């Protein structure tokens, strides 16, 4: 069992990525949530999904954006990459905010 755990930890250690790669991977979820909010917005405007679903989706997306913002702040990735992701994150937040206003 101890050997197996050591092998598992070794494998996990081998999978360590550079700070840039780590941040790029973490930022994947922001891109995914941004696409989700956009798609859900289209469906809400077409009356395919209810408003409460839209609100819950935006809330889930914003929770992910907050986590991503913390990751960017704590990341040791290159400054240009962090700045680029901050801009993309701002755009995603702005898009979610616009939808929130439409929902009111």
């Amino acid at each position, binding site marked *: 069992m101890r050997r197996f755990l050591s092998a598992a930890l070794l*494998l996990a250690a081998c*999978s360590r990525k550079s700070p840039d790669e780590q941040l790029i991977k973490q930022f994947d979820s922001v891109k*995914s949530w941004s696409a989700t909010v956009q798609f*859900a917005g289209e*469906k809400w405007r077409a009356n395919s999904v209810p408003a409460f679903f839209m609100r819950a989706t935006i809330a889930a997306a914003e929770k992910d954006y907050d986590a991503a913002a913390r990751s960017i702040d704590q990341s040791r990735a290159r400054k240009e990459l962090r700045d680029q992701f901050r801009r993309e994150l701002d755009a995603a937040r702005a898009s979610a905010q616009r939808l929130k206003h439409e929902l009111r």
Partner: protein
Amino acid sequence: MKKATQLALGVLTAVGGFFDVGNIATCTQAGAHFRFQLIWSLILATIVVIFLIEMSGRFAAVTKKALPDAIREHLGFSFWFVPFLILTAVHLLVLAAEIGGICFALHLITGLPIQVWALPVAILVWLFLWRSTFNAIENSTSILGLITLCFVVAAIWHHPPVHEVLAGSLPSMPSHDPANYWFIAVSIVGAVIAPYLFYFYSSGAVEDEWDSTYIPINRVVAVIGMGFGSIISVGAIIVAGIVLAPRGIKVSDYHQAALMLTEIFPFWGYLLFAISMAIACLGAAVEVALSMSYTFAQTFGWNWGEDLEPIKDARFSLVYTIALLLASLFMVAGIDPLKLTIMTMATNAFVLPFVTIPFLLLMNDRKLLRDASNGIISNIATAAIVVLALVLAVVSIPLTFMGGS
């Protein structure tokens, strides 16, 4: 005539009962992340589960004993005790994931938070178990479960590229994100070969009073029922691959999966997804809770049977009552239902050797099964299943570190 009806019902049951929260979670993730590239893992798992289901039905038909009962009797209580504990833990996790699925479906329909639904759902499942007979449970949840065929209809209407789907049916190396690819592949296998499935199936065969004449029916039900059932899961992979993947939506939350049917059914798609999820998870929750009671009762030699009045098998009824209460607490505590499901499916894969090996040993006991013991084909399949189970057990934990989302 009676057998023909049972055959039709059995196939229907297998089709309707195949799809559950594990399939919804892993198949939508697979389609959204890797389009059709992981269909092969579903096919592989389906072949394995067909063999396991056929063996457990054959075992029950010949010996008129369910698996835990027979394992305890023939291999000894101490041999069975560790697999029993592991099976109990996995049962509880799967039950919690299924309750999470129903709660999420109700959240989609009503807009109320998931936590609010946890205890009412547990009570609903409990009432269903308390008041119904085995056949009523089996037939109603499975026939209602046919609503999940909407994933197949949606997949066909999307006109998926046939060559890509066929290419995905053969194992291939991942195009990107290898750790996540293998993690989802293992989770799909864990979702399809859920250990509760074949333990439940053998107890169900005993409840239905199968004898040796049911062996051919059992074979047809296992092959056709499980085969068609897996087509629903392939449908979910295809729809997620066509609707979610091109938009860059990766499923890390059920809200993302809930959008997948809205392209093809603009008005009903959202509701169809919610109802499919609710019914599929309800059917599975009832089966898992029953399976847990069966396992306890057969392990400790208690009275058991869903057709008995609860007063005649009080301890049997007490087990599913406590299990439902404990499982609902996962949602009350606010654990994310999708994350719980994915981790549970990976755990299913990890524990596979512990719960399959005792059963596969019994399948070769000629004193017990006589002519119905495993032949060459079944034993080759058995060896392959054991190897696959051991490989899954070894790789599932490191993959959880590296690829688990």
